[in-house]
């Protein structure tokens, strides 16, 4: 199986005079899930936005499989990335099926109908696929947003607080999808405020503080109690 890797070196992002990120160094390999913890404004979302090509870094570089992200044709790198964020990227005036069909065609997917039905089945919305998104509950919209991110089978999955609005069932669905995704030797980066969830799901856990990596460790070397102590120590 093809091995993916991401290497982030001395990544900085400035907004005016303020540094949102300063000299971030990270490395991830196939099958790894990195959980990013940190307080609001620590730079977590900015980091994901840079990785997803929505923002450009001020300094530093990102290598994907050894190649600079900026050297990839933009449309090619975008096919490799899936993003789930606070924004669901869904048109409320379109049905679930119409939304996914629109994005499937943008990604030039082959057999879009099969893939759409597959992801809708996985998120439990197949029977309501013809309903307008505006009539969905927040949790259902979130599940559809998850389906949209998985639709094109990305190599890298970026999740920014993906559990917001999800009920127990939705949380289980997302956890199962993440497990399946990781078993396919893909890379996942999860931004969360939930220490327990972050530690349980991840292979590596990091804490961002003031735009810097304040702490990084293999999740297997930490238990929840230790992690909570570390979090308090750095985020105080």
């Amino acid at each position, binding site marked *: 199986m093809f091995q993916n890797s991401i290497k982030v070196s001395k990544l900085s992002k400035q907004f005016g005079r303020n540094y949102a990120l300063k000299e971030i160094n990270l490395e991830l390999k196939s099958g790894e899930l990195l959980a990013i913890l940190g307080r609001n404004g620590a730079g977590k979302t900015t980091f994901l936005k840079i990785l997803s090509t929505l923002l450009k870094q001020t300094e530093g570089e990102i290598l994907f499989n050894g190649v600079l992200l900026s050297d990839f044709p933009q449309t090619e790198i*975008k096919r490799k990335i899936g993003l789930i964020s606070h924004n669901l*990227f*869904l048109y409320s005036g379109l049905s679930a099926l119409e939304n996914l069909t629109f994005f499937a065609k943008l990604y030039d997917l082959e057999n879009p109908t099969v893939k759409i039905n597959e992801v809708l089945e996985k998120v439990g919305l197949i029977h309501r696929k013809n309903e307008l998104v505006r009539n969905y509950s927040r949790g259902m919209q979130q599940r559809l947003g998850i389906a*949209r991110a998985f639709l094109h089978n990305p190599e890298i999955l970026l999740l920014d607080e993906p559990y917001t609005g999800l009920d127990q069932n939705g949380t289980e669905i997302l956890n199962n999808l993440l497990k399946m995704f990781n078993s396919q030797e893909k890379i996942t980066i999860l931004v969360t405020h939930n220490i327990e969830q972050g530690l349980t799901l991840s292979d590596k856990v990091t804490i961002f503080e003031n735009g810097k990596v304040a702490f990084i460790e293999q999740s297997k070397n930490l238990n929840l109690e230790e992690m909570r102590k570390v979090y308090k120590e750095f985020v105080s």
Partner: protein
Amino acid sequence: MKKIWLILKKDLLLEFRTKESFVSMLTFCLLVIVVFNFSFEAGRAGLEKIAGGILWVSFIFAGTLGLTRSFNAENENGCLQGLRISPVEAGQIYFGKLLSNCFFMLLVEFLIFPVFVIFFNLSVSLSNLPLLFLTAFLGTIGFSAVGTLLSAVSSNTKLQEVMLPILLFPVVVPVVIGSVEATNLLLTETKDFTDVYEWLKILASFDGIFVSVCYLIFDFALGE
């Protein structure tokens, strides 16, 4: 082309489903015509000299209304970001949105023009109609080309409704002048089209410049 068509088709579907933008554009355009009709007596001598101005003021006001709403659907749920992380070039998003803006503005113009002719009791020569349509087409492209870009820029500002006209109107002055002059000439039943062709050439040139420049800087406009 396929992705431009996809974005256009999505916009048409959203609008035909809600009709929010189109109905407000049409109503507003009609109201402006009615107000002008009360202000300038129908059949008055010399009316044909200002008729083009009246018509284009109503088109531009209605067009601005449509442009203001053009990126509303994209901003809802962060759909514009969804487009930007998809394998679509900024230029394709621009042309998709431009075509959809042009389509609705042209549709409004097509429906309003007969009403305008009736309200102002104008006699328009049938032989002038193709050139009138061409003027409307070129004027609309030039106006929407800049409007689409500025609508994207202003859509994230708190004062979008104010910002868009302030930014847009000074830039599209050449297109408005060209469209008004050509329309005035064509409403006077002229048989000599030399001046009309000159204005149409100017309009086409500005369209070419505006579309090219806006296409090139749209990616930058969508940026951070």
